[in-house]
């Protein structure tokens, strides 16, 4: 009899095991999109190697919810708990009314009856290129670090050695990315899986070629909306936080660049996604010019290790924005009047042969102002915004100097580095521009060592708290950097 029982229960062969392990590890599948029939997983589930859980669970947080009987939900995959983002459908799969999450639909629908499958057994060995095993240096970046950068890099290495989280609070233009190269090398050599997450697709696309050039021997995978993960289980992944929703329990070390990348502030849901993608106890390294209060307070009170770089790598102070009253500029532009101070400022830039960014609060205003300026005789001007299909060409034109000025929404506030550029914010009192966005915008100016100074002007119709705070922050950073 016992023989019979044994023979009925099939034991996974080693081949089968590695196949399932490699397919599932680090990722979270909906049961219906598994690369093999769900039945095949049964033994693994019984052995505790694979976990299966419901996609949406009830979330009854307090007594009041229980009393009113109003059901609340949590999407286990993306962490959505905003009740407005759930809807009910009559589901043919389970034959009843099913709640589903509207937040993570692009990754395949998660309904209440959807099962999420992850690997929780032994971690598969990372297949590493030979150079790692031989012990040759992995980082081929040829530049050198300033002494501030060097100190920061060393502090970071120590924190990671102790598996502790770390904050790199660096002004725009301090050279944050170069600081983490040595830490990346250290982690990769240990055979760790590392992710560099950021809220924005633009930043992924900008970082990917830089990191690939710095680490030519390491397979680097880039994940953003519309990309295909071509390298399975790459040791180094650069990803938008949103794309990490599909990962689970995968990374030993997490770098988060531009924690506060406006307008996608690192919200609770992206935080959930990144935490789910990390292994328990994985250290987090935050890189930012304007840390959110939680991180700032943790750092200042000593709960979070970190370093502050108040000085740009070229050693010059940050340009401090000046304020200029312009009246209701948006209104004037819509009426077809070009506000004189803006026109004057632009003419000065053109005679001094300096390129300019003009930031405006809305897409509608991008169109209005661009047209108005072109009609007023400024021909080498273009408008660009997030949904603009010709955005990349216009940016290239600007970089190569074919355009004198670019009218833009806040999409450009980071990432785009053009030497010698100067900045005007048109309608800086609009509530789109919070203090962190304004600090980031001011950080566009004076990035290169050849041209470390430049004008930053906020055209406004009444100073806002955000404007004053932004200026104060910049002045504080300059003081901390040893400038008067």
């Amino acid at each position, binding site marked *: 009899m016992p023989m019979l029982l044994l023979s009925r229960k099939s034991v996974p062969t080693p081949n089968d095991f590695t196949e399932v392990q490699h397919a599932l590890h680090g990722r979270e599948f909906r049961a219906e999109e598994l690369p093999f029939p769900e039945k095949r997983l049964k033994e693994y589930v019984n052995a505790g190697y694979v976990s299966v859980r419901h996609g949406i669970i009830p979330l009854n947080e307090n007594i009041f919810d229980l009393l009113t009987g109003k059901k609340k939900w949590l999407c286990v995959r993306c962490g959505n708990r905003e009740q407005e983002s759930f809807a009910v*459908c009559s589901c043919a799969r389970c034959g009843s009314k099913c709640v589903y999450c*509207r937040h993570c639909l692009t990754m395949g629908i998660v309904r209440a009856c959807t099962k999420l499958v992850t690997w929780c057994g032994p971690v598969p060995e990372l297949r590493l290129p030979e150079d790692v095993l031989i012990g040759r240096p992995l980082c081929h970046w040829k530049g050198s670090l300033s002494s501030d950068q060097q100190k920061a890099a060393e502090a970071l290495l120590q924190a990671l050695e102790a598996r502790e989280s770390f904050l790199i609070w660096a002004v725009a233009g301090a050279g944050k990315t170069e600081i983490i190269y040595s830490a990346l090398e250290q982690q990769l050599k240990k055979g760790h899986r590392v992710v560099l997450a950021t809220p924005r697709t633009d930043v992924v696309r900008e970082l990917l070629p830089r990191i690939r050039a710095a680490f030519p021997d390491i397979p680097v995978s880039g994940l953003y909306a519309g990309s295909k993960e071509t390298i399975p289980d790459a040791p180094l992944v650069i990803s938008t936080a949103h794309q990490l929703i599909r990962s689970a329990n995968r990374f030993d070390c997490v770098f988060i660049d531009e924690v506060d990348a406006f307008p996608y502030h690192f919200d609770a849901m992206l935080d959930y996604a990144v935490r789910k993608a990390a292994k328990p106890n994985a250290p987090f390294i935050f890189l930012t010019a304007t840390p959110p209060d939680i991180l700032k307070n943790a750092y200042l009170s000593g709960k979070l290790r970190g370093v502050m770089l108040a000085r740009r790598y070229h050693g010059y102070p940050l340009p401090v924005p000046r304020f200029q009253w312009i009246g209701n500029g948006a209104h004037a532009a819509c009426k077809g009047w070009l506000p004189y101070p803006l026109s004057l400022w632009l003419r000065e830039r053109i005679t001094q042969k300096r390129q300019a960014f003009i930031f405006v609060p809305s897409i509608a205003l991008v169109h209005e102002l661009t047209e108005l300026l072109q009609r007023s005789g400024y021909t080498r001007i273009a408008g660009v915004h997030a949904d603009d299909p010709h955005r990349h060409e216009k940016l290239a034109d600007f970089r190569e100097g074919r355009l004198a000025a670019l009218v833009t929404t806040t999409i450009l506030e980071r990432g785009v580095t053009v030497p010698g550029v100067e900045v005007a914010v048109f309608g800086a009192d609009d509530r789109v521009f919070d203090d962190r966005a304004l600090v980031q915008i001011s950080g566009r100016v004076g990035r290169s060592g050849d041209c470390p100074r430049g004008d930053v002007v906020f055209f406004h119709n009444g100073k806002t708290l955000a404007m004053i705070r932004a200026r104060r922050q910049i002045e504080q950073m300059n003081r901390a950097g040893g400038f008067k």
Partner: protein
Amino acid sequence: MRCLFCGADFLKPLTFQTVFVLDDTPSFCDTCRGRLAAIAPDACCRCCGRDLSLLESTAVKHHICQDCIWWKHSGRNGLYGTNNALFSYNPLIKEMITRFKFRGDTALAAGFACDLRCAFHRIVKKGSTWRQRLFMTDSSQFVIIPIPVSAHRLRERGFNQAEVLAELIGPPIVQGLVREKHEMKQSKKNRRQRLASRESPFQLNKECIHLLENKKILLIDDIYTTGVTMRLAAHTLIPAHPLSVDSLTLIHG
């Protein structure tokens, strides 16, 4: 109020309805609405419901488009009367239908509830005699049949998009048709292949035949493309002896 599609906050215009009845039916914001290409009921093809203002005038004869003239001459119209469509195919509706049909965001359809109901009332009114109109607009002789999907597709997708739309219009919905075969996706065929198909993928639902006799039938689907599906469905309904067969779709495209 939040826009069902883009998530932006917006204010519903104040009307009698919104002021006196607490109206919280979800809908789309004005920006999204403005980007949809609504078809005006008096400017559409009398047979397929497409927006005639998008065609060159040479392609239109007596308010009927060339495709529909072709159908008339083909002799395959049979019982089938006319189609009514709400929107022309454009990038926004394409995005919406992708999210609704292929990603499963069925809540999105609720934003069209008003449009669908209005269109239904218009169809009822158009089809009734002045006598019926005088005494009461009689919708009881109408029966709504959503175009079915195959069992395979239903399992894969979790719902039938036509049924979701039909439910927004409300009773009397009858599952008069079933689709047994799982055929090639319509969207994978070219126009020629589609027009050539004469074999109906539908069967009459035997349990519902008695509900269809002498009724005006309104078929519901998400999109009217070539018109083949509708005509095949109408053909399948012949043994149930309906009075007429027309259709209503969200999109003409």
